[in-house]
């Protein structure tokens, strides 16, 4: 029998697959019943030892995100849309391996896993299409009572921290990452702590979609260790808090005051409900800029 070549799951920072500088790891086991343990004595099958990111890894991720963001924001809306669409293409091509991971880590049925991967692909396509439309819908021309041309447009905020939901790990991650990226933000994501494998695998999709290095950075690790550093970081300008932990959410909201961070807390019952997605998710991580221009000769 051919011996399987196993994958080493790493963090994704600055477009590179790196191990945590701390050298720490967390074992990730298969869901009960999804795969047989290797031996009778083992309770669960070990799937992988993943990196447990440290505060230093987080800071490096923010640094690289901050330096990558202005260039990403300056790309045309058309190009950003095509890059998000290419993510969907890359995910489609790897659908089978994502389905396997969802079955193994969450114990989903084949149909359940296929449904989530399908929904994830569709979500990427959905947000890809928003790239050159949201500005027209969120922007306004304002009829001021003086001789000025006055208009308001949404702009990206900068570096956005995302606390991803524990489940559904893949669809949840994409549902928060895509709307943050499409408007020109860079993201630092704390992945699902209990089921990080599909999310870490998504880094391979990002890396092959022409998304510039550093625009999306994915960290696996312990949320209660990393979240406070994310919430207090002076270069993180906003947080999408979908972690689903009330105590952690409260600490994020409080720590965010250090630099008047914008915090959007999400409590989403059904990530499959596409109607609950879309423009609002993009708007949450944009700033409205109003420009006054004199009219005259």
């Amino acid at each position, binding site marked *: 029998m051919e011996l399987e070549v196993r994958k080493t799951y790493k963090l994704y920072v600055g477009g590179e697959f790196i191990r945590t500088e701390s050298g720490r790891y967390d074992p990730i086991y298969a869901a009960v019943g999804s795969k047989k343990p290797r031996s009778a004595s083992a309770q669960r099958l070990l799937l992988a030892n993943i990196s447990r990111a440290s505060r230093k890894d987080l800071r490096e991720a923010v640094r690289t995100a901050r330096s990558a963001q202005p260039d990403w924001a300056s790309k045309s809306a058309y190009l950003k849309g095509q890059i998000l669409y290419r993510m969907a293409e890359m995910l489609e091509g790897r659908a089978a391996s994502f389905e396997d991971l969802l079955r193994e880590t969450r114990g989903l049925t084949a149909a359940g896993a296929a449904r989530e991967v399908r929904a994830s692909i569709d979500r990427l396509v959905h947000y890809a299409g928003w790239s050159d439309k949201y500005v027209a819908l969120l922007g*306004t021309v*304002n*009829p*001021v*009572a*003086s001789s*000025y041309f*006055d208009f*308001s447009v949404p*702009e990206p*905020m900068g570096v956005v921290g995302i606390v991803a939901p524990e489940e559904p790990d893949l669809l949840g991650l994409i549902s928060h990452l895509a709307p943050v990226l499409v408007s020109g933000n860079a993201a630092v994501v704390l992945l699902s702590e209990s089921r990080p494998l599909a999310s870490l695998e998504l880094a391979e999709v990002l890396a092959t979609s022409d998304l510039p290095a550093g625009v999306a950075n994915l960290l696996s690790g312990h949320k209660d260790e990393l979240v406070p550093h994310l919430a207090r970081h002076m270069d993180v*300008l906003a947080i999408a808090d979908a972690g689903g932990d*009330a105590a952690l*959410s*409260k*600490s994020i*909201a*409080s720590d*965010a*005051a*250090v*630099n*008047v961070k*914008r915090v959007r807390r999400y409590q989403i019952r059904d990530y499959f409900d596409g109607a609950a997605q879309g423009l*609002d998710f993009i708007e949450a991580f944009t*700033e*409205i*800029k*109003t*420009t*006054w*221009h*004199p009219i005259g000769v």
Partner: protein
Amino acid sequence: MSTTITDQKARTEALKKVEAEKPRLEFGGAWDYAPAPESKEHVRLEKRYGLFIGGEFVAPRSKKYFETINPATEEVLAEVAEGNAADIDAAVRAAEQAYEKRWKKLSGAQRGKYIYRIARLLQEKAREFAVLETMNGGKPIKESRDVDVPLAVAHFFYHAGWADKLEYAFPRHSVSPIGVCGQIIPWNFPLLMAAWKIAPALACGNTVVLKPAETTPLTSLHLARIFQEADLPPGVVNIVPGAGETGAHLVNHPRARKIAFTGSTDVGKIIQRSIAGTGKRLTLELGGKAANIIFEDAALDQAVEGIINGIYFNQGHVCCAGSRLLVQESVAATVLTKLADRVATLRLGDPLDKNTDVGAINSKMQLEKIRDMVSAGVEEGAQLHQSACAIPSRGFWFPPTFFTGVAQSHRIAREEIFGPVLAVMTFRTPEEAVEKANNIPYGLSAGIWTDKGSKIFKITSKMKAGVVWANTFNKFDPSSPFGGYKESGFGREGGVHGLRAYVELS
């Protein structure tokens, strides 16, 4: 013979002296301005003002009153009730009752008609409000008359029209009000800030507890009289004056579902922290340190007027004031000469005088802060330039001031002074201007001066600021969203975007 020569010499010397002392720019000739004070007769002041709760002026449960003064003369204008926790509780309950029993049941169209009434009444009383605003706050009458009051009216008129059209602002959503809004406003534009807060809140179907600033409660309390005259249902707007502690009671009241705060970044951070985890909605409009960028191809005389307006408007008590001047090196000398000449013509004095350009500093405390910051500027090595204008003997005053030789790291280049003090820096390339302008935790506003359209769009798009003025400065309109990036706060006031802060969407 010799006496005549001496006389002639003396005459020439005297003429030279007059010439030297004359401002190099003249507005309206070399004659002195005769005093032209606006009459105070039209303002009917009470000796004592209660809290406005449930549609009536009531005695405070705190049993405390504080004196409110005219900062230009230090004379006491009236005594004003100070709200404590029990007063805030009474006001929030009145607002909640009004919300449940009356206001949320009204149709948008009916709500709108109340707000239109308020706008009209305020227009009718424009003079009373302008004079009172100037008396209580120290700002020049020409500003309160031509900016504060008309803009406050415009905000009510604009938002009145939204009340029955909210579903058009939020397509695909069902729109409902939030409930009781606690609103805390500053002392720099007391009436205008009350209008910015109250008008959208009411239009969206909410009720309000407003805490005006401790030094400037009077126009808010006179606005309460307008609410009475408009037959606004009791409790829809409640006004509880007081200092920071009163505001804290409002912020932390469990039944205040939304907090809107305009003020300093420090206090904004305390508020953001204190409501964490409560589920309350929050908008913050905080400090600023705007850069006014002058490129070499700008119309320099216009740009200098823009600089003057940017920093000396309302004595620099403006969160979006153009308190940093970034001027391209090639024109720096010319701009600075023109600036110094123009500063010398600014008339500081009686705020009620219709010729006054620069009024009184709002309070003694603020004057101390400005003095501290100016001393810091001198100590850190920047060069001080100050108008030689006469300073009245009573009241709080600070002459129009600017610093040259300022480094990015100086406190006067980084911290909000909130006074008539400008920090001048230079740059060589557009990239350097952008870098310097954005290199600050604030992001409220910015100004760009150039004759080249494409440069305007390039530079304005690079500014990390919520409001960018091109070849103009300090322009406001109710249809135009106002608010900051970064530590200048979040949320917008005005325009379609401003409504978002006062609605629940589902």
